[in-house]
Every structure is written in C-alpha cells, then in structure tokens.
C-alpha cells in the first residue's frame, strides 16, 4: 500500500520533469545558440553564394534558422541581455536576406564571432 502510494506520487513528478527536460535555457545557453545559428547561417550563405545549394533548400533552411533566432532574440531581450539580443536581431535580418538570395556570409561570420565573444 505504502509503495503504491509513493509510486502514485512519483509518476506525476516524473512526467513533469520529462516534460520540462529540454525546455529551460540559461542566458548563457541562449547566446551560445545564437552563435551556433549564425555560424550555420554563414555556412549556408557560403554554399548559396558559390551556387552549391538549391535556392529552395536555402530558402527553407534559412527560414527555420531565422525562426529559432527570433525566439532566442525575444528570450534574450526578456533576460535583459541587450547586446546579445541586438546580435540576434542582426542575425535574423541577415537570414531573411539570405532567404531571398542575399550575399550575407561575411556578415553572418562576423556576427557569429561577436556572439561567441559574448558567450565567453
């Protein structure tokens, strides 16, 4: 009986812990994610500028990168990490230009380096 009651109490707690796993992110982690997305965006932009990727792939994948950056930008602004939020905003603008064929690899590399410095 005691074991059953304990197990009944444990299950909701475990379910909550599982649901929350992967949800929480610190400001540090968010800035590192901005660096990662900017670096990946730079790589994608280089392939686009060389003509080594299809326009559809670049548009769709840059779109997903931008969505994630926009989420991080909002989180960083809410955490008062204003410099990091400005970098994220600049990355988002470049990714939007990349979606429409813009040449932004150098700018995204620079922004990735900026985000990496902020993360350290």
């Amino acid at each position, binding site marked *: 009986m005691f074991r059953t009651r304990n197990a009944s109490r444990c299950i909701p707690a475990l379910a909550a812990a*599982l649901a929350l796993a992967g949800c929480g992110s610190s400001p540090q982690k968010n800035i590192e994610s901005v660096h990662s997305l900017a670096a*990946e965006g730079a790589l994608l932009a280089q*392939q686009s500028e060389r003509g080594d990727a*299809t326009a559809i*792939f670049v548009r*769709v*994948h840059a779109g997903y990168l931008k969505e994630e950056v926009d989420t991080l930008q909002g989180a960083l602004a809410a955490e008062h990490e204003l410099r990091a939020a400005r970098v994220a905003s600049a990355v988002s603008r470049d990714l939007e230009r990349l979606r429409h064929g813009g040449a932004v690899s150098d700018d995204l590399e620079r922004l990735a380096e900026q985000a990496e410095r902020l993360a350290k």
Partner: protein
Amino acid sequence: MNKIFQIALGILAAIGGFVDIGDLVFNVEAGATFGYQLLWVVVVGVVGIIVYSEMCGRVATVSKRPVFDAVRERMGFGVGAGVLIASEFVNLMTLAAEVGGAALVLQLLAGLSYRGLIVVAIVGLGLAVWVLPFEWIERVFGYLGLCLLVFVVGAIKLHPDWGAVGHGFVPHADTDDFLLYAYFAVGLLGAAMTPYEVYFYSSGVVEEGWTPKDLGLNRANSMIGYGLGGVLSFALMITAGALYLPKGIEPQFIGTVALAADVPLGTIGLILALIGILFAVGGAAIDTCLSGAYNVSQFFGWEWGKHRRAAAAPRFTLSWIVLLVLAFGIVMTGIDPVMLTEYSVIFSVVALPLTYLPILLVANDKAYMGRHVNGRIANAFGLVYFAIIMIVAVTAIPLMILTNGGTG
C-alpha cells in the same frame, strides 16, 4: 549464383534500411558535440543489433512464429500485454517522428507548406504499404536509402584527422561534461537497437517463409547488412565532427544533416543526401508502422501479414492504417520531429529489456529451438548485451532530465 544474388540484395536493403531518423539525429549531434569520441558506442550498438536480430531471425525461422507470438506464449498474457503497450507507445512516437522527418525533407526538396507535405507523406507511405509487396518495400526504400553513402564520400572529402577518428573507436571520454557524454552514448545505443527493427525482422522472416536452410542467409543479412549499415552511422558522426564541431554549430534541424553533405560535395551531394534521408526515414516509417500492426495482431492471435490480401487480414490492415492516422494527428499538432525523435529514442531505450529478454529466453528454449538453440557464443554475447541494455534502460531518463534533453 541465385543464392549469392539473393544475399547481395538482402544486404543492400539492410544497409540502406539501417539508418532511421534516430540514427541521423543522434549521430550528427554526437559528432558536433564530442567529435569522434563516441564512434566506439556505434560499434557496440551495431554488434548488439546483429546479435539480437540473428537470434530473432533464428527463433522465427525455426519455430515458424514471430517473436511477439513467442513472447506472449513464453512470458504469459500479463507480461506480454505490458510488452505490447510499451512497444506500441514507442512505435507510435517513432512513427510520428519519421513521418514528420519525411515531411521536412520533402519541404527542403520542394519548398511547399510543411503541413501539406505531412499529408503527402502519410498518403505516400499508406499507398506504398497498400500496393507494394513485402519484398519490394524493402528493396525500394533500402536501395534508395543507399544514397546516404554520399556521407561516406563527404566524410573522406572533409579530410578529418584520421588519427583522431581511429582513437574514437577506443572507449574514452575526453570531456568535462560526462553526463552529456553518457546521454549521447545511451541515445546512440538506443538508436542502433530500436525494438521495432527486431519485431519487423522476425515477422518478415515468417512472411517470406524462411526455413532452417535459410539460417545462413539470416546470419549473412544480419552481420554484413547491419555491419555495413553501421558505416553510414560512422560517416554521419565523422562528417559532423569534422565540419560542425570546429565551428561550434549545434545541429537542430534535418536541414543541418543535409548541409553536412552539401559543404564537401555541392548541390549533387545535397540532393543525394536529401533523397537518401527521405527514403531511409520513409522506409523506417513503414517498418515501424507494420511492426506495430504485427505486434497487436500476433498478441491477439489475429490473421496478419503483408502477403495476405487486406480482406483476408482485416484487423491487421486496420491496425497499420490506425497507426498511420494517429501518427498523422501527432505530427499535425506541430510538434518538432527532431525533438520527438529524441524522446522516442530515449523511451525505446527504457523498453529495450522488455524486448530483448524474451528473445534471449526463447532462443535458449530447446522446446522451441531444437538443435538450433543458442550456443555458448550466442549466449555469451546475449548475456553481455542484456547487461548493457539494463544499464542504459535504467539511466536513460535520469540522463535526459539531468542534461536538459541533451542540451547540456
């Protein structure tokens, strides 16, 4: 000659069908996070799936009954029901992840709306299962999945530090974040040894009417097919380690996986990677869907089998259709397929003992197996792997919580 041809075809299908969305996600993430340090874990996982799929195939061939049927009879209704519920839950999560993954790849190829392409993916998979005979499902999706060999070429072209790659096959952990390392090790093992693979394999053996004369073919398919399939996993990890780790890129999207083939090989590499991922994931979706239908039908004693017409196995047919519809519903909620993949792999790890213990017991049962019962080598491997499976099953969920879902 015919036999050799048959073996070759089976091996090719096994190679192309080895990788599913769990392998794609975990191998690329592991490479981008730890470089080549976890290559040894892939070897452990590949040997594990070889050991158990060979056992499964032997059980099904000799007893003429698929594994789930034997599980119910050997372990009793109660335990069998528990195994069924756990495996169906994991099957459904995995199926939804594969369907979502296929829709994402279609979007990267065609540029159309993701939700519309979920419908296309579901209808396409449903038609493939309805129309294609069993052998042709394996061949079409297995052969086109071979496009993933582009990652092997890409890995070589990236000129990784081959000394460091070789060192990756020796167990070691050169990291401060041992919990995250352990999480990825668990995920890689889970991705290599997902339960639906052995249930599907054993049902397929019965569908194709294998006899004890085919046990050699069973062993060849398992060892060579899965062994070479493991090379694809190595290639994914090496590519990510060479390309993404130095740049600090954390893979979060299916497109990131394809980009890893695009960088060294250009547009042709990108297209081949996307086609390979589409058919590998699509093939895995079909395997998972049919595996779920096989399990339910075998547990309740219904008529089952792809070789039967739909009218001759109505509840089996309805089962796989219901699973596809449920998966469709899950993916249409907008849940991220990559995140769903991680959850499905980790939960399948927890279910591994329920899958593999009955197989080990039945393969050791002389009443079922006669002279084809497990020998000393099979038992030694089986027991070692069962111990490994128990350790990873117990640690999987705590590691997922402690590492914040693998984000560190």
